[in-house]
């Protein structure tokens, strides 16, 4: 034995320690990976030795390598060995390694239970503290369940250091083991009034975290926090409490009213900026929650805004940033009080700090009015030219569109100006917001009838000069604008001055480099224009005689028939299909022309694209009733046999078919394998069919751009750049400039005092001529959103954060004021005893495997738990009473009866539930007993694994500690 020790020590002298490792890595910068690979080999050798100090050294090195990005999970068993050392030095190394490398899914964690428990109960507060710190990083649901009671015990430790850590630890336990929350809560509440301020602060911290997700359950704690807030001087804790109140006030306006005064006092008195800022934030939250019915709240708002102005004017960029952040919260409810500080916010737009500029941008949308919109947008456009980063530029672009389009273009007095702004935006390089600009163009053209002639003229110019938009690779997303341009020119072709020129622009060879979905729109609109030209070139009846007109028509037909084949050859299915239809149509017209029977053909082609566009509500689909007797989830055909799962690759279709036809999708869905996937496939197929239908239907075009925008990347390398040789041509003649309108507005601003009521309910009204005349200069905006199905709002369907199924806080949403039931206890683990954990009824999540379950027999319950139970009931009962007093300091009793009644009802409702749940519990008990017997009978090995596994480590530890003892004894 001694000899082996000597040998171990001898070898240890050649080992690298952590410092050597770090130095070595620094000296081997050129072949770092090789050096580290060599080190890892050495570490593996060291870990095989029995000397604990060698192992600890190796584990310390691994922790360092983990930081460098090396996966060291293979050594987790050795980490546990080092953790179980009796020496604080090594234990520390072990726990550090564990906290850096373990995570809740680490398999070896089940081996640590008893070791961690022993450390938690250690005589040395630092060993227990170490265990708590480490555990907080890797606690798993099993560990949380098994150790909850031990951590609870530490809550009443005599040492504040441990109490503090245990309180924080409880939060982690709650997250992993939600059932612990109710039994542990009374004890946690006590800690809010702990004599040690550190423990208090920790408890506040935990309650804040809990209340952030489920605030309503913590309303009853408001009096305690209120007392703390008015008495404590610990700024850190005050900040947390004030933040908590910010989360609670929306639920209880009475609390807000009580808070205003102390908070205002704090705002006036405190010198700490952090506290001041949080106070302002909470006052804002209060004011938002009681925005009505509070007579003197304008003074509070004034105070906040005034203080925020001081923050924004401060030279410290951090305060400036936070000031703007808080300002944006006020803006939502009290825009007027913020607007008076417009100068300051516009000034921040010029700040050198991007974070601050972004915050100021957020505020802008509240700053604009009819009068200053043009100026502000102009300023933003200048910023955009100067901006360096594309992300900032994108942000600017989307903000421009946001502030202009808010409330159905409420602030826009001149739509010609807005369209010219949009056209200028298309010249921005490298933005990803092409679809946004395209959407705006479409939207304006559809909603504002009076502007159509202007838009069409601008779009025709854009189409004619499309090489400016598609010229550079970075502008790829901007080519979406061509989608809008082509559609607008086609749909409102009656406004085109030279349809033939536009038709030519659409038919250019370069078009074939555009993304497929844009080409498809091109083809469709080529036909619209073609029809228009046919009808417009002379009245149809006289066309046969008028040779000049006939020649012109024949020429156009010739041109279209000559150019369309290049679309037919497109690799995009959609383009191909539409182009070949169009081609046949043109050929037919040509045939009729030569026969001299073309009269009326133009009108017939136009009628193909006839129809009025009406807005479609985003949720219109909901309006469609599912017919009775139709089960959408039912199989239409027999589900395919599950054996054919080898056809899996079929499901992953090449992107070429992403917008492919429904038939195709159907075949695949039939072939595909798993039923679950099939339903998904079905959804996908329906979506595709719908998309295709929408793409064909001009009424749906608005959405089409978005849906398909990603389907094709167009190769810009092939675009001939020769035409860019002339720098003069960069200014397209005839393209409107927004500056022009800005100047005009300044000149005529005195004249332009026009009534701005221009909302109209339905589009049909707009056709009536007298209204049209009156509204023409004002640009009527059709603000109709279409018919919404009942019960649907524009924003619904957006899931709340709270709906996230993985959020552990969901399970923590329990009523904490309800007295504890007898069976609600923390599981107590007595050594090597078949114990089963009691389930508390319906809220219990899925059972862990019954092997791990333990049973607490009521007779064997440890005294601490009884104590806890009594405590829980004891402390719960009185808090109900004073809380009522807290809310109602004045004569505010009118709201009270309702709440108390509803509480009573709730209690009544719950009684029968309890009965039934106790019945089911008995049943499940019996079942579990049977199961346990089975386990024992089946195989002793399995059961030993389940029950005795945790004791495995202590055994190992014993041997180790024996060894260490040997050393000590020898010495």
């Amino acid at each position, binding site marked *: 034995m001694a000899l082996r020790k000597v040998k171990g020590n001898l070898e240890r002298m050649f080992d690298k320690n952590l410092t050597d490792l770090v130095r070595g890595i620094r000296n081997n910068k050129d072949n770092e990976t090789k050096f580290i690979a060599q080190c890892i080999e050495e570490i593996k050798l060291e870990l095989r030795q029995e000397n604990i100090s060698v192992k600890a050294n190796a584990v310390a090195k691994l922790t360092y390598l983990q930081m460098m990005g090396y996966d060291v999970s293979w050594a987790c068993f050795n980490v546990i060995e080092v953790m179980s050392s009796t020496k604080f030095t090594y234990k520390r190394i072990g726990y*550090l390694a564990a906290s*850096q490398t373990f995570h809740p899914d680490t398999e070896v964690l089940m081996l640590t239970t008893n070791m961690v428990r022993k450390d938690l109960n250690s005589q040395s507060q630092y060993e227990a503290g170490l265990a708590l710190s480490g555990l907080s990083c890797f606690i798993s649901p099993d560990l949380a369940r098994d150790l909850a009671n031990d951590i609870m015990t530490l809550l009443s430790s005599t040492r504040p250091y441990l109490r503090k850590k245990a309180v924080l630890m409880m*939060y982690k336990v709650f997250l992993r083991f939600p059932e612990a929350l109710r039994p542990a809560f009374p004890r946690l509440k006590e800690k809010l009034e702990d004599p040690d301020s550190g423990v208090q602060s920790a408890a506040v911290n935990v309650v804040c*975290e809990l209340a*952030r997700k489920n605030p309503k359950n913590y309303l009853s704690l408001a009096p305690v926090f209120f007392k703390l807030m008015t008495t404590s001087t610990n700024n850190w804790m005050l900040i947390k409490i004030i933040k908590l109140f910010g989360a609670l006030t929306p639920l209880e306006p009475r609390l807000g009213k009580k808070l205003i005064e102390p908070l205002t006092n704090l705002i006036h008195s405190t010198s700490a900026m952090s506290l001041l800022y949080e106070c302002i934030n909470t006052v804002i939250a209060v004011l938002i929650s009681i925005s009505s019915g509070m007579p003197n709240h304008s003074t509070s708002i004034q105070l906040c805004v005034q203080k925020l102005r001081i923050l924004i004017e401060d030279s410290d960029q*951090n305060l*400036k940033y936070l000031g703007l952040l808080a300002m944006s919260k006020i803006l939502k409810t009290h825009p007027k009080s913020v607007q008076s500080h417009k100068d300051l916010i516009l000034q921040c737009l010029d700040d050198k700090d991007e974070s601050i500029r972004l915050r100021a941008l957020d505020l802008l949308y509240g700053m604009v009015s009819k009068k200053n919109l043009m100026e502000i947008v102009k300023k933003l456009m200048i910023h955009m030219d100067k901006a360096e980063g594309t992300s900032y530029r994108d942000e600017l672009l989307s903000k421009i569109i946001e502030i202009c389009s808010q409330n159905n273009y409420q602030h826009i007095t001149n739509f010609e100006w807005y369209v010219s702004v949009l056209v200028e935006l298309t010249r921005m390089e490298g933005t990803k917001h092409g679809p946004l600009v395209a959407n705006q163009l479409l939207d304006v053209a559809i909603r504002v009838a009076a502007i159509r002639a202007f838009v069409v003229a601008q779009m025709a110019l854009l189409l004619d000069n499309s090489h400016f938009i598609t010229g550079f690779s970075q502008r790829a997303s901007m080519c979406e604008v061509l989608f809008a341009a082509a559609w607008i020119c086609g749909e409102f072709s009656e406004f085109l001055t030279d349809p033939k020129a536009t038709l030519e622009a659409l038919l250019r060879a370069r078009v074939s480099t555009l993304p497929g979905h844009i080409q498809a729109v091109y083809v469709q609109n080529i036909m619209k224009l073609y029809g228009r030209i046919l009808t417009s070139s002379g009245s149809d009846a006289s066309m046969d005689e008028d040779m000049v007109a006939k020649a012109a028509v024949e020429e156009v037909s010739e041109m279209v028939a000559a150019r369309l084949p290049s679309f037919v050859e497109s690799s995009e299915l959609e383009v191909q299909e539409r182009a070949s239809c169009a081609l046949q149509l043109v050929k037919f017209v040509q045939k009729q022309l030569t026969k001299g029977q073309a009269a009326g053909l133009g009108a017939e082609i136009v009628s193909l694209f006839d129809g009025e566009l009406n807005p479609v509500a985003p949720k219109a689909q909901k309006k469609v009733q599912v017919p009775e007797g139709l089960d959408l989830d039912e199989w239409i055909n027999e589900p395919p046999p599950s054996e054919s799962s080898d056809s899996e690759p079929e499901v992953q279709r090449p992107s070429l078919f992403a917008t492919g036809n429904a038939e195709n999708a159907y075949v695949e869905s039939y072939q595909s394998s798993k039923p679950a996937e099939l339903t998904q496939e079905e959804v996908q197929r329906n979506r595709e069919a719908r998309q295709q239908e929408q793409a064909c239907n001009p009424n749906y075009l608005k959405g089409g751009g978005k849906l398909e925008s990603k389907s094709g990347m167009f190769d810009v390398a092939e675009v001939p750049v020769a035409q860019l040789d002339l720098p003069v041509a960069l200014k397209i003649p005839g393209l409107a400039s927004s500056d022009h309108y800005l100047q005009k507005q300044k000149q005529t601003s005195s004249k332009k005092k026009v009534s701005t009521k221009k909302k109209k309910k339905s589009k049909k009204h707009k056709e009536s001529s007298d209204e049209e005349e009156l509204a023409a200069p004002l640009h009527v905006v059709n603000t109709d959103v279409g018919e919404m199905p009942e019960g649907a709002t524009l924003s619904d369907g957006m899931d709340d954060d709270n709906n996230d199924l993985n959020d552990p806080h969901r399970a923590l949403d329990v009523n904490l004021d309800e007295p504890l039931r007898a069976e609600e206890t923390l599981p107590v683990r007595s050594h090597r005893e078949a114990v089963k954990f009691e389930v508390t009824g319906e809220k219990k999540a899925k059972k862990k495997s019954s092997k791990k379950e333990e049973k607490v027999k009521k007779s064997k319950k440890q005294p601490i738990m009884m104590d806890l139970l009594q405590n829980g009931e004891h402390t719960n009962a009185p808090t109900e009473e004073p809380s009522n007093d807290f809310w109602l300091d004045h004569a505010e009793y009118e709201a009270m009866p309702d709440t108390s009644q509803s509480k009573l009802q709730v209690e009544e409702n719950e009684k029968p539930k309890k009965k039934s749940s106790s019945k089911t519990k008995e049943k499940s008990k019996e079942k579990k007993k049977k199961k346990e017997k089975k386990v024992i009978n089946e195989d002793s090995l399995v059961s030993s694994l389940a029950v005795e596994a945790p004791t495995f480590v202590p055994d190992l530890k014993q041997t180790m500690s024996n060894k260490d003892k040997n050393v000590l004894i*020898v010495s």
Partner: protein
Amino acid sequence: MIKAILVFNNHGKPRLSKFYQYFNEDMQQQIIKETFQLVSKRDDNVCNFLEGGSLIGGSDYKLIYRHYATLYFVFCVDSSESELGILDLIQVFVETLDKCFENVCELDLIFHVDKVHYILNELVMGGMVLETNMSEILTRIEEQNKLEKLEHNRLMSFRAPSNPSTPTPHRLGSNIFFFT
């Protein structure tokens, strides 16, 4: 909650990484890299808050950082933390390091990353602020160091100080002496 604490130098080399939510090693390195890119391109006279960081968190998370000489100290926190409070906490952390290492510099962090972790463990536990009072933090650290020293001395009393480069026969002999 604090989601992660990162310390890296002006070149993006990690000096300390503490994640309070599990990410695998590759992801951790990516996060460090992304955070470095976000933080390093900012001037020293701009504000210390930064939104974004697509890998870690999301819209609810902020990066709050301070730049000291060659090192960046970055805390990734959610909205339940006070921005200015965290800035103070970083200050406390660095001042504590300064006290413990006596005029701390990057080399101290490079060679004693374990000690830095122990110090951090007294400030933050499991993503929640444990203690902000520096004297309290220092006492706890000193007491634990004392514990270590005590064990070390006890160890050294029967084991000669080992210098890996010069294993002289004399030392070997002294070891044997202790074991007989």
